[in-house]
């Protein structure tokens, strides 16, 4: 048996050169909280691991004019301790606080969470609802991909074997917006049976009227997704009980869940209906508490 090789580049240029050189034989390792479990159980068997830990430029949160840019090696703990994240994207803080357990949050990273794309991960629905865009780099090119186009299937993304995730850009929500992430799981450290993120941008003139609503779903399809039909149905509408219930029902119809030992597909779908309704109610309450969206 050939021993697995571990390489630890010191710069982005070096890492991208290695990505190009080793292609499919190599896997990049971020926090390792999921990848090392897959390795131990022989579900994956790369000849080479490219350790991204030494690439300091990939870790940290930067404020930008219209939002913020988060490096993929930023840990969940970093996100939770960042005043910038709390101020500019409290929805991301909410979702980050639900990831795994303390030990996993201490080492797990935002980039690993996205690239691993395990169903039930907490950050994707929140980042989808925030309209995040990711920047991918290879030795030859840089491209930006809206997160909505990033996920391809269970454990699959659009990242090619010569690319690395370089940054996650999160636009700031307009003033008065509110946002809620709800996770349904049996035990706190589990992946979500269903995870729902809702961003509500209320109409300035009319109480309870949604100028825009965004609904991110996790754990209920082969990829995390936006419930765009449900969003269209309530855009511009008065969010009364009937409209909120309808949004939940439409979102549930957009989910395409699987059955696994944690929950049946049918149960997951029902939970989407419940959580979407609760998240919208929570977002309305948050808006009204903040004094926005009142007539």
């Amino acid at each position, binding site marked *: 048996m050939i*021993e*697995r*090789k*571990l390489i*630890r580049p010191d710069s982005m240029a070096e890492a991208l050169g290695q990505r190009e050189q080793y292609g499919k034989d190599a896997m990049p*390792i971020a926090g*390792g*909280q*999921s990848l*090392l*479990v897959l*390795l*131990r*159980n022989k579900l994956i068997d790369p000849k080479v*691991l490219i*350790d991204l*830990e030494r690439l300091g430029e990939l870790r940290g949160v930067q404020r930008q004019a219209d939002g913020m840019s988060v490096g993929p090696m930023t840990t969940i*703990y970093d996100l939770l301790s960042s005043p910038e994240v709390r101020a500019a994207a409290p929805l991301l803080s909410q979702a980050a606080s639900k990831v*795994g*357990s*303390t*030990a*996993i949050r*201490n*080492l797990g990273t935002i980039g690993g969470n996205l690239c691993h794309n395990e169903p039930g991960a907490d950050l994707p629905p929140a980042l989808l609802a925030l309209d995040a865009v990711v920047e991918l780099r290879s030795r030859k090119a840089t491209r930006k991909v809206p997160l909505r186009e990033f996920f391809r299937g269970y454990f699959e993304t659009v990242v090619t074997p010569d690319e690395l995730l370089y940054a996650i850009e999160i636009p700031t929500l307009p003033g008065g917006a509110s946002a809620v992430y709800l996770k349904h799981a049996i035990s*706190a*450290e589990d992946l979500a049976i269903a995870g729902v993120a809702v961003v509500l941008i209320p109409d300035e003139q009319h109480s309870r009227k949604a100028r825009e609503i965004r609904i991110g779903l996790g754990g209920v399809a082969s990829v995390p997704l936006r419930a765009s039909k449900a969003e269209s149905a309530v855009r511009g509408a008065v969010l009364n009980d009937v409209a909120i219930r309808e949004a939940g029902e439409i979102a549930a119809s957009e989910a395409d869940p699987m059955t696994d030992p944690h929950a049946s597909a049918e149960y997951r779908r029902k939970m989407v209906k419940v959580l979407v309704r609760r998240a919208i109610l929570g977002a309305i309450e948050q808006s009204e508490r903040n004094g926005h969206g009142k007539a």
Partner: protein
Amino acid sequence: MAKLKLQINGEETEVEAKEAALLLDVLREGLGLTGTKRGCETSHCGACTILLDGMAVHSCVVLAARCEGKEITTVEGLSEGGDLNRLQRLFLKHGALQCGYCTPGMLMAATALLRRNPRPSLEETKIGLDGNLCRCTGYTGIFDAIQAYAQDGGK
């Protein structure tokens, strides 16, 4: 194979390990530090919890090579002059263990919590220990021991 220089419980140690070896394997098989328990090996149960630069981590999902230049603390590093430390004695007093398998991990997670937050509320204590499973005590004794430690400020 690679030669790793690790700082464990205040001492510099050299050990031979595979390049992509996991810290748990290096601690137990490479160095005979069997206080750190092998549990689920999927980062759920927390039996293998150790401190890495003071933070609680599951050593079954940590590359040993990444630990060079960092401070590792295992349960063996808690005792003071060969005696149990105060937190360990409070675990005994409050019946915070039965079979004892989860105990090293619980102690390490509690140590990390108390260093960061010397007076955690019960809720904060539960969050601090959310990566550690116990299948026999029902947790109450463990929370009691930690709360007792916090109330006395560790004295």
